[in-house]
């Protein structure tokens, strides 16, 4: 019967595919180090096991985490997400951010926000917000300001079209250097885009046909390599121009 045993000096799992149950690190062979575990990893006494299927990533000096793409979003502090207003209360707006619970956006969490100029959002307004606190068991806390108190592009998004994707595609769209699909589209078309780490993307352009083209190109690009993405975008643009 094969039991997952930590093998010393084996090729490490970093940047490789792991599945739940794989023992990725053996702490007894690494002493006197502090290791930070990100999402998808769990400590069982001396061994670190993966809890999610995905790629194991490592960043210096000591951070390990499992990167995977899902349709469900788990709120975590510091993420910029696209939320939809569900209800207004006296002190907070209730926002749906595709997480397990509704999030609270305090009515004063806007740049220059005071009791006198509280913004009025209708139910269904799309808002670009930042997650401030996301503790398990509590509703996440949001804000329309960045960490220093400036508005920084957060706030309601008018017009345009919003569609939902997986979290992996959102992260790829936000990666730097620029994602190939967005670079190829940006050379020929002009549009504006907002990407939420919760799997929601908003696109706006002058003509509806541009919006549809950009949205379809992004939705198709999830499983393509950079070369394939450029080819796909070129083919789409050729058909319309």
């Amino acid at each position: 019967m094969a039991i997952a045993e930590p093998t010393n000096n084996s090729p490490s799992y970093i940047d490789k595919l792991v599945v739940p149950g794989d023992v990725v690190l053996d702490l007894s062979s690494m002493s006197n180090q502090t290791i930070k575990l990100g999402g998808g990893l769990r400590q069982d006494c001396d061994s670190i096991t993966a809890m999610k299927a995905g790629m194991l990533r490592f960043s210096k000096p000591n951070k390990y985490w499992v990167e995977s793409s899902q349709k469900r979003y788990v709120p975590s502090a510091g993420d910029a997400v696209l939320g939809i207003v569900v209800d207004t209360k006296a002190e907070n707006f209730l926002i749906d951010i595709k997480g397990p619970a509704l999030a609270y956006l305090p009515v004063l969490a806007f740049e220059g926000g005071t009791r006198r100029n509280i913004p009025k959002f209708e139910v269904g307004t799309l808002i670009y917000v930042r997650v401030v606190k996301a503790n398990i068991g509590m509703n996440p806390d949001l804000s329309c300001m960045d960490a220093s108190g400036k508005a920084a592009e957060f706030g309601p998004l008018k017009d345009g079209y919003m569609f939902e994707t997986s979290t992996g595609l959102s992260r790829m769209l936000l990666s730097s250097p620029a994602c190939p699909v967005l670079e190829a589209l940006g050379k020929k078309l002009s549009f504006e885009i907002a990407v939420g780490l919760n799997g929601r993307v908003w696109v706006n352009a002058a003509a509806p046909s541009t919006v549809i083209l950009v949205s379809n190109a992004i939705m198709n690009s999830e499983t393509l390599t950079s070369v394939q993405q450029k080819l796909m975008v070129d083919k789409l643009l050729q058909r319309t121009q």
Partner: protein
Amino acid sequence: MEESRLVTPGEVLGKASQVKAGKGAYVSQRNSTVYASLTGRSCFISPPPNSIDQRPTVEVTGHNPHAAVPQPSSIVIARVTKVMPKMASADIMCVGPKSVREKFTGIIRQQDVRATEIDKVEMHSSFRPGDIVKAQVLSLGDARAYHLSTAKNEFGVISAESASGATMVPISWTEMQCPLTGQTEPRKVAKVET
């Protein structure tokens, strides 16, 4: 007027000038009448012979007079159900040594969690949903919940589960440790009884 009868909440038991309101009855200030507040049998208790106020006391005994009901300054054991930024909700399970028969809800507000630095309390670092806490009833609160307080050393979390599912061991006033993984989690810990 003196015989015991079955009464329901809102029934008139007498005038305030003639009877005193005991358990299960109350006086309405507007028209100085004593009404019943429980469903049960009313009974009249004669006043002690040498007291100034010679009015009899009327009491209503409900269907379960021995049931545990939280009263101000009684010690209760509750399970935390929801943690919010300014307060935590808990289901009261026992009042003193007795368990309750019906559902009572309590609220622990941010300023009642501990005695020092009450405005810097982080509710998420004091309680988590599922924790068992020992608290004292501050007041009857409002229609929805009693107000509870854990602001003394002997009140706070007495039992909690870690994220891995094991019962944690208290290691200080503010931390509990999971025996399986060694991780510590912050809680407002009650003094361990020795």
